[in-house]
């Protein structure tokens, strides 16, 4: 059963936010995964595997009582902001925004069509709920940093979340932003790395072997680092809560994920997990069937498992 959580508000503000249970979050992620597959296959293009690796994280963020937002007040100054820096995972964002109530799920089937608000990469001018126009990789962390700094200038308490791709962090600008976020001690900025281990032309450890050691790098840049399984909802939720408690440092959640969410049509392609490729009708049927089996992926334990996190004061972060 959902728990409605009261968010402390300024006088006169009335706001409550959805906070689904772990079982409900699992069910939501399953349903949104279906939508990702269906909308991309209908469109004939899109990035389903890149979107599927992100969906559990996004589901937890939006519906687990973490991100503070109100679809009826998209310009609410105190809202938290989410930036999908890996903009090609737009189908995941669109599914989440529809589920959140920004627009009707019926519109999802217009993905990438002429005249649709759902462009191939998110367009903040066209679609309500989109905080940044991304797609040219490497820019979203800086954009998020800018929004987080604005909160400080305006003395508002909102947080900014930015999701990065593991290929995306090849871009130098990511590291410029990382240094700057650390310099300004921006603790209202949480980055999430969708570490699905494949980029467009191959495995990340082939295209850029020097990427690792990643935890060491982010810590060296002054970030507080968490490392989790990006498909375990309990761990995801625990980590989002823990990140909010980290003082004076931006936080990086390195989430190990599966590009294609372990669905066999994607697993079969061990070069790039069908980057940018949609499933044909036969593959789609197979994938949807496997999704049904996956429906209850996680256990419903409220405790984190071996790859997740605990109390920042305690110091254990991996």
């Amino acid at each position: 059963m959902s728990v409605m959580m009261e968010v402390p508000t300024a006088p006169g503000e009335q706001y409550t936010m959805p906070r689904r249970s772990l079982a409900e979050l699992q069910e939501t992620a399953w349903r949104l995964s279906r939508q990702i597959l269906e909308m991309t296959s209908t469109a004939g293009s899109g990035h389903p595997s890149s979107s599927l690796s992100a969906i559990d994280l996004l589901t937890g963020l939006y519906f687990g009582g973490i991100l503070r937002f109100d679809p009826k007040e998209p310009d609410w100054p105190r809202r938290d902001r989410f930036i999908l820096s890996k903009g090609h995972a737009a189908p995941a964002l669109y599914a989440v925004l529809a589920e959140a109530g920004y627009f009707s799920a019926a519109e999802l089937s217009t993905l990438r069509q002429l005249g649709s608000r759902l462009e191939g990469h998110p367009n903040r001018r066209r679609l309500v709920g989109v905080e940044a126009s991304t797609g040219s990789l490497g820019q979203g962390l800086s954009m998020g940093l800018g929004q987080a700094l604005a909160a400080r200038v305006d003395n508002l308490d909102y947080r900014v979340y930015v999701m990065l791709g593991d290929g995306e962090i090849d871009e130098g600008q990511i590291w410029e932003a990382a240094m700057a976020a650390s310099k300004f001690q921006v603790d209202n900025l949480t980055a999430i790395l969708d570490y699905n281990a494949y980029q467009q032309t191959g495995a990340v450890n082939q295209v850029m072997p020097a990427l690792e050691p990643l935890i060491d790098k982010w810590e060296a840049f002054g970030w507080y680092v968490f490392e989790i399984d990006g498909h375990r909802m309990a761990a995801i939720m625990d980590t989002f809560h823990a990140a909010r408690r980290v003082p004076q440092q931006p936080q990086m959640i390195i989430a190990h994920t599966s590009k294609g969410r372990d669905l066999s049509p994607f697993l079969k392609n061990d070069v790039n997990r069908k980057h940018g490729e949609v499933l044909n009708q036969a593959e789609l049927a197979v994938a949807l069937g496997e999704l049904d089996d996956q429906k209850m992926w996680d256990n419903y334990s409220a405790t984190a498992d071996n790859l997740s996190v605990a109390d920042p004061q305690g110091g254990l972060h991996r």
Partner: protein
Amino acid sequence: MKMAKERGLTAGPATRDAFGEALHELGGINRNIVVVDGDVANSTRTEAFGKAFPERFFNVGIAESNLVSVASGLAAAGKEVLAASFAAFLLCNAYDQIRMGIAFPQLNVKLMGSHSGISIGEDGPSQMAIEDIALAASLPHFTVVVPADGPSTQAATRAMFAHVGPVYLRTGRPKVPVIYNNGFAFEIGKANQVREGTDVTIIACGIMVAAALAAAQSLNARGIQARVLDMHTIKPIDEAAIQRAAQETGAIVTAEEHLLDGGLGSVVARVVAERQPVPMAFVALRDTYAESGKGDELLEKYGLTPAAIVKAVEQVRTRK
């Protein structure tokens, strides 16, 4: 409209200094202005703002791509943002960030690029922006302003913040003559006619406006009356003023501290060709980078002078 005496314009501040002063003043009036600079505040002259309003000033170090996208994020969150660095680094290093973070989403960010042109002198080509007008003008939704002197730079800075939307303001390092006294009008998108004439029109921007006036003085001695237009706004360009100039004077010379193709000359030529074809000649850098040297020496060597403008006028008049 009043302007400084044509015979011997008085010396004035560098446009970067005028900008810095105006920005500082505006910062006190408008508390929503935030400035992002990349380790060059004492060169771009955002320093005074930064010292006065440290809570609204962010030095991101030598990282122009991050600088621009941070500015984008600040603007998305409702701030009125000024992003500053040397024009070469701001436009060239961060072009994709400007394109996707400012132009495409049409966010309210003002870019200020200093050290434009070759007149910066001894530092040499790596610090000189000679293509920034072309780069900025090719961005949809952008306004591009290249002011000619101190007073108009102050006015341009105020106008830029009064305008909602992306703006690129180009400033320079050398001191420049004062062209405008008190009481002049400055409106984005409206060229200022700083000299009347009917034999030819010289359309110039930035430091070449003073050069154009000097050239006009020289031509005047020979009985040739040149109209001089300060085309401070390259985008949106004052098409009506260009058309009137073509109609009324029959020949146009453009002059800019910039490469030949893609800047002021190219935009004017497109308008002339569309609306009122007349002979044109262009004073600009001819497909070359400059080198180290004194600013004045470089302008002389690379043909950005009153004499070059006179020569262009003579040439274009033979084709009338």
